């Protein structure tokens, strides 16, 4: 059975609450969307740190202008459009233009938004990783999120390469079992 869509609660009443200055509602919106906005913006600007700054600015501006907040379409679409605009403005900035001119050309094929279904998929992946057994999860996240090689992981944790390989295989198998069958059904 599919998980309930966590994004669906951000409907018109939620926006109304934020317009009225409800900080808790604003925080919930931030915590749900910020990670995906960062990933999305980072694809444009090439740096996680810059992406985080831009996303923070986006939310701060949203809060500052909350009394005029008007979201016609889905909240996701609104946020991703706003994020994309900030990313493009950032790239157009004089000081960064030179460095990123080449990058900008390469990135013209980037998707204009991440839609809700992709966010939901990423949330599922995150949950599935959290459900891995602890050592398996540690090894998997060191490789996938910290970018360590098998050798580096083996060295750091004092394990054999074989163990690292086995755990990576197990992680892949577990994730596949949880995620791909769901998607194909």
């Amino acid at each position, binding site marked *: 059975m599919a998980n309930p869509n966590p994004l669906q609660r951000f409907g018109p009443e939620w926006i109304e609450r934020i317009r009225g200055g409800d*900080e808790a509602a604003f*925080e919930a919106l*931030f*915590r749900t969307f*910020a*990670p*995906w906005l*960062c*990933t999305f913006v980072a694809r444009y*600007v*090439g*740096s*996680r*740190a*810059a992406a*985080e*700054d*831009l*996303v*923070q600015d986006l939310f*701060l501006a949203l*809060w*500052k202008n909350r009394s005029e907040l008007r979201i016609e379409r889905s909240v996701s679409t609104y946020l991703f459009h706003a994020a994309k605009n900030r990313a493009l403005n*950032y790239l157009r900035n004089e*000081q*960064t233009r030179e*460095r990123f001119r080449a990058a900008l050309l390469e990135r013209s094929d980037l998707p204009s938004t991440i839609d809700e279904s992709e966010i939901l*998929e*990423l949330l599922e*992946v*995150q949950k599935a*990783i959290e459900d891995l057994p602890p050592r398996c999860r*540690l090894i998997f996240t*060191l490789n*996938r*999120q*910290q*970018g*360590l*090689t*098998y050798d*580096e992981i083996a060295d*750091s*944790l004092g394990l054999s390469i074989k163990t690292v*390989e*086995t755990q*990576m*295989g197990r*992680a*892949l*198998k577990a*994730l*596949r*079992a949880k*995620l*791909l*069958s769901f*998607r*194909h*059904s």
Partner: protein
Amino acid sequence: MRPTFDGDRAPSGGMFDAKNDDETDWVLIARYLAAEASPAEEAELRRWIAGGPDRQDELAALRRLWDQAGALPSSSRVEAMWQAIAREIRASDEPAGARNRRAWVAVEARAAPPPAYRLLARRLREISRRPAARLIAASLAVAAAGVLAWRAYPSWHARIVAMADPGREYRTEHGQRAEIQLRDGTRVDLGPASKLRVRFSGEKGPREVHLEGEAVFDVVHDAKRPFRVHSANGVTEDLGTKFAVRAYPDDDRVQVVVVEGLVALRPSNAPQRSGTILGPGQLGRLDLAGKVEVTSGVDTAAYLAWTRGRLVLDQAPLREVARQLERWYGVAIEIPDPRVAEKRITLDIPLRALTEALNAVTVPLELRYERKADSIVIHP
């Protein structure tokens, strides 16, 4: 000998149907996706793909899953981001211009700052050695400008955001924090009364920093350029991480807490590839004799609470609390009665006015404090 996975229930509609498929080599596929496969292994994978009708599609689906697993942001960053936003919006009665943390703004403290604060402003401009310019938010523009910018909190705690060139020394006074971004993208949150000296050897060599005091490091991992924090008698080496190091001159040990990833902690005179590995949620204490004691499952948020403007201590003796308060408020705190000094208290307070902090400590323990000319004395 490749492992087999018979006996697994095939998911409905799934392609790896245990009944039709002889074996699925997850280890091999993982190695391939992780770019660890040798040419021979890649050839083997191609043979496997050719062996079944849907395997190419399956591999593509697995590749997508793999990429998604690598694209997830870390939850600790979200927390840090939210704390920064929360601070801004709670103080949001400021006019919009003053809040722009990307502009170089002259400090306008709302409470009267202590004289030391103004001296510090001058001192930091001297350290900077470059004309004040607009501070650029992007970490990638770091190399272009070494700029200092100010932002005053409502209290007199100042936060300096510095874009650093390696080879510099950064110093904070009591009650002050600095956020420093190094050229390699690593971020350092420097605590009060601390010194950080950055020594990178060019673009290729190891990245060494020297710390006296306390800092949180969010390191951009590079296996070819190890990141090492030298402090007191210890060296903490990054293995892909976010971690906090505390080593004040008046501490009797180097303390390291790991939030994400791994570090290796060893005495300075121990060989390079040695050391105690610390993982997320672990606290390592290196004593003067070079021995490392490890505690697991610590509340890392408590150890990093100061980066969010809070002081969090769990059943800490008063003498330890007093030391922390001294670093944050720049006042000397005396506890003449040794029994009082050993009383324990649990605290979770914002780092705001000193009187607030003193009350939070003395009231629950039924103590009182007295302000003298140069110090604060705590009595029963």
